[in-house]
């Protein structure tokens, strides 16, 4: 176990940033902490790094207790969203920093430092930039310098705070795949914080979803997406529609759809359904409605359907372009929708 935290609590004044967090990250894993802003994910990362002190709880790194260890002694690599490169130093000096500040007797000789920095520069493919200053580099290049700098001390644990948050979509996609390859090649343990579900689902071995200072769910990306453990996770990860439902006497009724059996106490519930799980048909049975908008998004088509008997937002259904051509629905068409698969949650569990 490379990272373990037990019973971590942190408040900022009245605001509870972390309610009670337990988290283990196995050696060699790449784990994403996913959550909306203000959910406490960055605070958790900073506590693990030693940049913030928890009010309660313990932190273990490499199996050893690190709760009271100062940040300098934790030997974790930390990468900030805005890179935090030393702006007055060259790229070379930035990467060499961690080695040159070591106490004299532990410091490697200058030639060894040079060799190490050159090795890292080639690892992040920036050999040509050694003598440049951070301001002369693009965002993606800067983030790679920040990574190289963090890796110079060969940390066993790498912590990344929204590492690609400030980059363009395309650059971030490229960089996160590159980070995954780097992670696999160097065998460190990585924990990264993100609010971008795409990023978390795409590169992480495991995803931890946080909400209001608590861990909502932890699982593989597939688990998180396919079997969300709570209404919050279902709504936050992927896109979704929400419909009111009612359970009475073991039967669930969703609008005019035929009731289905659903064991449990009588309650008003919320049905959360992903757009690709909304089926549209020209004939019933189903919940009648009218197509109000059709949007082509690359290979997919989104169809908005305003349901009868509801003044709520239209339901969004998603198709592949091919299927959409066969069905050929247009704005204004009367249609019937059915729900292929959905999650059932308490309605006030709103995000």
């Amino acid at each position, binding site marked *: 176990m490379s990272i373990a935290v037990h019973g971590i609590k942190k408040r900022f004044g009245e605001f509870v940033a972390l309610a009670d967090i337990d988290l283990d990250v196995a050696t060699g894993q790449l784990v994403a902490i996913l959550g909306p802003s203000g959910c406490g994910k960055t605070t958790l990362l900073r506590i693990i790094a030693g940049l913030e002190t928890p009010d309660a709880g313990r932190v273990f790194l490499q199996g050893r207790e690190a709760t009271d260890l100062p940040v300098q002694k934790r030997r974790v690599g930390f990468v900030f969203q805005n890179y935090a490169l030393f702006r007055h130093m060259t790229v070379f000096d930035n990467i060499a920093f*961690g080695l040159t500040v070591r106490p004299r007797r532990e410091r490697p000789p200058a030639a060894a430092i040079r060799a190490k920095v050159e090795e890292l520069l080639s690892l992040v493919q920036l050999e040509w*930039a050694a003598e440049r200053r951070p301001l002369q580099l693009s965002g993606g290049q800067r983030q790679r310098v920040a990574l190289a700098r963090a890796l110079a001390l060969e940390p066993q644990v790498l912590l990344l705070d929204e590492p690609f948050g400030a980059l363009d979509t395309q*650059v971030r996609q490229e960089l996160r795949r590159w980070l995954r390859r780097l992670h696999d090649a160097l065998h460190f343990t990585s924990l990264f914080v993100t609010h971008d579900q795409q990023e978390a689902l795409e590169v992480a071995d495991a995803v931890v979803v946080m909400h209001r200072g608590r861990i909502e769910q932890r699982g593989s990306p597939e688990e998180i997406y396919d079997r969300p453990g709570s209404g919050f996770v279902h709504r936050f990860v992927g896109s979704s529609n929400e419909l009111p439902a009612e359970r009475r006497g073991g039967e669930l009724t969703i609008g005019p759809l035929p009731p289905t059996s659903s064991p449990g106490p009588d309650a008003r519930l919320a049905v959360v359904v992903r757009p690709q799980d909304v089926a549209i048909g020209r004939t019933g049975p189903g919940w009648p409605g009218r197509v109000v908008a059709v949007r082509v998004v690359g290979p997919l088509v989104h169809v908005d359907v305003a349901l009868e008997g509801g003044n709520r937002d239209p339901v969004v259904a998603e198709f592949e372009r091919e299927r959409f051509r066969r069905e050929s629905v247009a704005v204004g068409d009367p249609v019937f929708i059915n729900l292929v698969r959905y999650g059932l949650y308490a309605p006030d569990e709103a995000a």
Partner: protein
Amino acid sequence: MSIVRDGPGSAPAPGAVRPRRPVRGLARSLLITAALIYLVLFLILPFVIVFGQALAHGLATYWAALVDPMAVAAIRLTLTVALVAVPLNLVFGVAAAWAVAKYEFRGKSALVTLIDLPFAVSPVISGLIYVLLFGAHGWFGPWLAAHDIKVMFAVPGIVLATVFVTFPLVARELIPLMQSQGRDEEETALSLGATGWQTFVRVTLPNIRFGLLYGVLLCNARAMGEFGAVSVVSGHIRGLTNTMPLHIEILYNEYNATAAFAVASLLALLALVTLVARAALERQAPELRRKPLPGPLP
């Protein structure tokens, strides 16, 4: 950038060159003229007059006024005071700016307000506060007298008053700068194993060096030029507790205008040096900016 054709009535793309409208010539020249007249009348003219008066009776008289023993004593005292007050406020200013910019604590806004206090009160009052504290009938007066320590009407009093009056200068220069730079670089340095001192010397100090230098320049100019507070605590003992501004006043009151302006020209020169140094620093400050070069990865 992709090529996007603007439809009619659409806003110009960012960075697009707009055909320049002829500027309203009259308003512009009026404003510039007004500003220039103002500058000449209130800044440049007095400056010229200082030097004109100083040199009115030739270089020899000018030189004699400067090497007069009393003048030399005043210059030496002014330099001594600045030499003590400026380093003190340098340390204090960096510490205060550091605390305000990089930490959250109770009473932070009160501290920021307090830093401004010397600017808010008249220098004469600052001086009087010291008389009330350290004067013969002040709070610490009897104790100081019993231990034979002279603060009032002596160099320590002048230094104290100068420190008080000039202490916001460095801090005020640094606080916004350090606030805008944030804490990330320092935290990164710590996470890379640097000690607090290494972080300060290798990361913080280089980032604030231009602001710090400018703050020190201003602090120095004010320390050498301070009149009001120093006047109250100095006692005007010629050759002992007279700084340059006080010496100038005495000479002037004695109708020795040439000598007064000769010494004054030194202070005016100091102002000039400060301004030139400032311009030079500002040219240095924006770091080299060049376009990112293409690399194999974004």
